[in-house]
């Protein structure tokens, strides 16, 4: 028999967190299996490995106890109620492909994973250019759905598009089109709360509203962002705006020769982005971001430590890469696009690029698969960077939020590059424009076959986070090992934001079962014991 939630609440808030016993976990899993069926409950050693972090600093640190895969919101409701009554931590994944941020693994080892992969409904509203999705729908699934039906709507895709459309938007993932800030495309959600209640946000709060995917706010407080990068609820459906296929796409693939060209490039793009001449989210990448997909380290050097300037020059020459490169794209009606292209070309010529290759595409024309990211076509080839060291690899991100100032970005680049050299790492960075901000997405490439190398990764990342914090730069997203450290940086008024988050957490999830530690938000009982 399940205890009433109200009783559980008082007991739990007072008691310090203790991991559930093996017997409790077994009982909870048995009850969950009765909900989802034996074919959707996974608890072998191999299953536990499959749900562990694939790009880890320590692969054993976040190993889950089991996974269950519900097929409906009603099953999710039943599962959270079971978790609460047994006080067993659960961790939700949409498809579990968040490589670089923990894959499918939970912050708290021994959690039970709620894998929403089997929830795959797609409802497209063609005239309104929206889609209502369940979390198990991947970028490839949605792309194939639209293509096979000749629906002229585009998605925006991240550099590794293996994962879930909803899951990526819920972790504020990025793409490269005008719809590249994926969390902004969310319009209306269906959410299971930690006590099992089911709520719809925005206009969805009205039964049968035809405007759920059209108006983001509804009436009164708008809650969608409450369920983004949080542990306050489980999103079982979300609306996303799709981009109407443009009449034409034009642009330039720009290469800049020198390290110090970053500042002028940013100061050229920033005003055009703010003004709207550029509506996409342009991403400036360094030479290595392009090269580590195409080649491996051993082909160029057998020396450890950061790559020398000689090696960098040789690789750049081989692939025709500038120190920095960016693909700028303008989308829309032919006449408007051409007018904006003239403005863009003039601005770029003023900073003397090493090369500037024009791009043009109309619907129906073929294009190179490597151009797909700017056309909303999902891809996985950028993940070839995981093979940079020749064996098992991966990456962990370090992504502070910057201003769109060339001078300040150069300073941040110089500090970061010096640290990469100090710790003997190969520097991969990008600078991704929002409308007003810029995300400096650095990837630390891992060599999982080299324990000595791996020992340097954690102190390196903590140093980068501390450096950025000194200058007021906090990260927009974090790997499960760094969620506490990143949350710590948000420290105004003695961590008032954390206090607010935890008050909300304890109100919505008194049993403290949903994704403890997500984004540094811990339920009350965990407070002292669990924080790193």
């Amino acid at each position, binding site marked *: 028999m399940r205890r009433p939630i109200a009783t559980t609440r008082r007991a739990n808030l007072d008691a310090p967190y203790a991991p559930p016993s093996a017997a409790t976990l077994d009982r909870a899993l048995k009850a969950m299996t009765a909900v989802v069926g034996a074919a959707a409950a996974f608890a072998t050693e191999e299953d536990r490995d499959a749900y562990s972090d*694939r790009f880890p600093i320590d692969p054993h640190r976040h190993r889950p106890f089991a996974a269950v895969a519900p097929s409906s919101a009603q099953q999710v409701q039943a599962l959270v109620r079971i978790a609460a009554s047994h006080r067993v931590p659960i961790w939700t994944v949409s498809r*579990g492909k968040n490589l670089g941020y923990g*894959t499918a693994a939970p912050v708290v080892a021994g959690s039970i994973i709620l*894998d929403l992969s*089997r929830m795959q409904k797609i409802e497209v509203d063609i005239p309104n250019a929206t889609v209502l999705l369940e979390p198990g729908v991947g970028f490839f699934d949605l792309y194939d759905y639209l293509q096979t039906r000749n629906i002229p709507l585009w998605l925006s895709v991240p550099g590794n598009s*293996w994962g879930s459309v909803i899951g990526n938007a819920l972790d504020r993932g990025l793409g490269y089109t005008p719809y590249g800030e994926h969390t902004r495309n969310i319009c209306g959600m269906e959410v299971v709360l930690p006590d099992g209640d089911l709520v719809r946000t925005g206009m969805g709060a009205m039964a049968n509203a035809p405007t759920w995917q059209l108006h983001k706010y509804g009436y009164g407080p708008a809650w969608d962002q409450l369920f983004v990068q949080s542990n306050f609820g489980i999103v079982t459906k979300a609306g996303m705006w799709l981009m109407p296929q443009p009449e034409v796409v034009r642009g330039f693939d720009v290469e800049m020769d020198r390290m110090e060209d970053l500042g002028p490039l940013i100061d050229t793009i920033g005003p055009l982005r703010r003004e709207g001449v550029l509506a996409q989210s342009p991403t400036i990448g360094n030479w290595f971001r392009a090269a580590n997909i195409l080649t491996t380290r051993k082909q160029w050097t057998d020396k450890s430590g950061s790559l020398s300037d000689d090696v960098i020059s040789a690789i750049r020459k081989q692939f025709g890469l500038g120190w920095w490169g960016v693909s700028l794209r303008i989308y829309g009606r032919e006449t408007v696009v051409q007018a904006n292209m003239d403005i863009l070309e003039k601005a770029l010529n003023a900073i003397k690029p090493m090369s500037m290759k024009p791009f043009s595409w109309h619907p129906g024309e073929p294009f190179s698969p490597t151009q797909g990211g700017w056309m909303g076509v999902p891809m996985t080839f950028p993940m070839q960077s*995981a*093979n940079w060291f020749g064996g098992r690899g991966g990456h962990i991100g370090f992504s502070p939020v910057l201003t769109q100032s060339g001078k300040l970005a150069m300073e941040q680049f110089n500090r970061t590059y010096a640290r990469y050299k100090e710790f003997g790492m190969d520097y991969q960075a990008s600078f991704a424009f929002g409308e007003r901000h810029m995300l400096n997405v650095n990837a630390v490439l891992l060599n999982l076959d080299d324990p000595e190398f791996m020992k340097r990764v954690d102190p390196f990342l903590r140093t980068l986070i501390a450096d950025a914090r000194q200058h007021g730069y906090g990260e927009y997203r974090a790997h499960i090992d760094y969620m506490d450290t990143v949350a710590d940086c948000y420290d105004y008024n003695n961590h008032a934001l954390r206090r607010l988050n935890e008050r909300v957490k304890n109100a919505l999830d008194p049993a403290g079962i949903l994704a403890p530690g997500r984004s540094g938000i811990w339920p009350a009982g965990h407070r002292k014991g669990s924080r790193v």
Partner: protein
Amino acid sequence: MRRILLTGLCALLSCGARAAELDGKQLFHEKCGMCHGAVGMGTGLLARRMKPDVAPLEMREDLSAPFVERAARIGIINMPPITRADVSDAQLASIAQYLAKGKPSK
């Protein structure tokens, strides 16, 4: 113990029976194509270790069904393990049978 063995055997039998009814080729494209298609990560990395013309898994003639199933479940080098929620045992068996034939229909 005996009960576990029997359950396992039943699972295997029903798995095989269901796999035969599934379309391995279609499932391969749906579940594996993003990496093992023409420009995917899997094809790109396999092309570094073998002749590029046999880097796409559908062009291989040396794959056995048990090998495909093990590789998918435990991962290989840069390939992450595929969970059973993503690709069920029956679906994977069907994909493995398709790839083990080694000859794509064109």
